[in-house]
């Protein structure tokens, strides 16, 4: 059982970004955190990963272990991939293993395994600038998987991927997560994405971000894009969307935000 508990944050310019955020994630569960732009989603992800230290509150793993950046329990898949441009694919996947002090030979073996898992066999020696956005994100995923983290955090992972490839990449990522029984937290503002990927969806309110509602996604059939296209799926998407629109109600509904809720 893996439990995350975070609460209250407000460091920058003494503005409270997050307030009373508390939720738990079970082992092997995939959840999405969704909310309007600027609600503190990314801050929450940084707190969970340990990159940002909250003013108060804690992130717990297995009810006892505190988040420890020297020996991270989480691995992040970043929106902009954040691959090291001077390293080739294998070198990038090895990064987290190097930090853990895994010997070279074993590193390469592990990296090769995950490279194959994300479908990039044959691209070992390619550098990021020679790969498409979707391929770069696969490398990002392999890098995260390679350190066998307790939780994989996804920070809007499909945003920078070509829209044509987005759905198929989503499906593949989901498949890999489910088959390897990984626990994952997705940060997103895409309702469809959240519903098709997750077991549980947490909606956040506008700043200061608080947990607005927690939805359990209990749709028939395997987790995939298809289930969204059922009546229940439609209803769920509609509910979450209404939630988010409600958050924005009374505030300037500028076009960008309206689009992001789509």
């Amino acid at each position: 059982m893996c439990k995350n508990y975070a609460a209250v944050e407000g460091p920058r310019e003494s503005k409270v970004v997050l307030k009373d955020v508390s939720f738990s994630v079970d082992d092997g569960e995939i959840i999405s955190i969704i909310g309007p732009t600027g609600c503190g989603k990314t801050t929450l992800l940084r707190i969970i990963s340990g990159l940002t230290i909250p003013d108060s509150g804690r992130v717990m793993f297995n009810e006892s272990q505190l988040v420890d950046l020297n020996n991270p329990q989480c691995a992040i898949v970043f929106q902009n991939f954040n691959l090291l441009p001077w390293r080739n694919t294998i070198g990038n996947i090895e990064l987290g293993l190097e930090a853990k002090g895994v010997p070279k030979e074993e590193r390469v073996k592990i990296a090769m395994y995950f490279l194959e898992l994300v479908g990039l066999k044959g691209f070992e020696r390619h550098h990021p600038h020679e790969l498409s956005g979707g391929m770069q994100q696969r490398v990002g995923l392999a890098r995260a998987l390679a350190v066998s983290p307790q939780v994989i955090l996804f920070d809007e992972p499909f945003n920078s991927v070509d829209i044509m490839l987005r759905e198929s990449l989503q499906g593949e990522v989901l498949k890999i997560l489910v088959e390897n029984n990984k626990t994952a937290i997705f940060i997103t503002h895409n309702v469809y994405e959240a519903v098709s990927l997750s077991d549980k969806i947490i909606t956040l309110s506008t700043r200061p971000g608080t947990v607005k509602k927690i939805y359990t996604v209990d749709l028939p059939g395997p987790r995939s894009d298809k289930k969204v296209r059922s009546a229940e799926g439609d209803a769920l998407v509609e509910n979450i969307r209404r939630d988010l629109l409600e958050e924005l109600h009374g505030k300037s509904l500028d076009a960008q935000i309206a689009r992001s809720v789509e």
Partner: protein
Amino acid sequence: MLRSRGALSDSTLKKFLRNGWTVRVISLVIFLIGWQIFASSVNPLIFVPPSVVAKRFLQLWFTGGLPIQTLITLETVFVSLAISALIGIPIGLAMGTRKIVEYGIDPYVNFIYSLPVVVIIPLAVIWFGSDLWPSTYIIVFLHAVPPILINTMIGVKAMNRTLSETGRSFGLRGIGLLRKIIVPGSLPYILAGLRIGVGLAIIGTMVVEIFLYNTGLGYELVFFQNRFDTAAVIVGILVIMAIGIGCREVIRFLEKRALAWSVGATGVA
């Protein structure tokens, strides 16, 4: 027919002239011819044509002390550049990663940068007198360290900050973070700093050789000036120029080799 052939040769000529190297070579040939014609008509004590310079160069290179003096100069340039890099890069890295170090050190960097370093010579002579070694290195360091240091610092700052965060999120700390993320990430700027630094190290070396030394190419200039050997002075200038071009090109080559992944930083002087 005639007209179309004319148009063809026109466009060939245009293509020919658009090639950078053809234009450069033509420009240089015109320059040399102009120099030859002009210099042949003035007092050879004052100015000499390139043909005489070339002859004097061959003499000095094969029967004179030019190779040895060149080596002496190169040694000073490279030893001081290496030490300048060993001083400038770590300080630049520290300044780029820690605000407190940056604010603590940047006033001095500004002072040195604003100073024509040659004015330090009288002070160096008072301090070290005829002991040339410390004066040499102080003068050359003051020239070469600031650009290396500043470029390194800017490189660290210009580096995608999210990359060091990525390293941190995977558990990299301290030296590991520096070695695996920060140094390779700022390498384009570090190398640009070295490229600018080598030019300034040559300037510093010339300053000390001209003012203090009795060896090296800088001293040769003064030596031949006193003998009104204009051709030899021009030979000296050209050799120094060649050293400058050579050093810059070597570093540029290293930059290209090491930074195939980067779009290329230009650096600041």
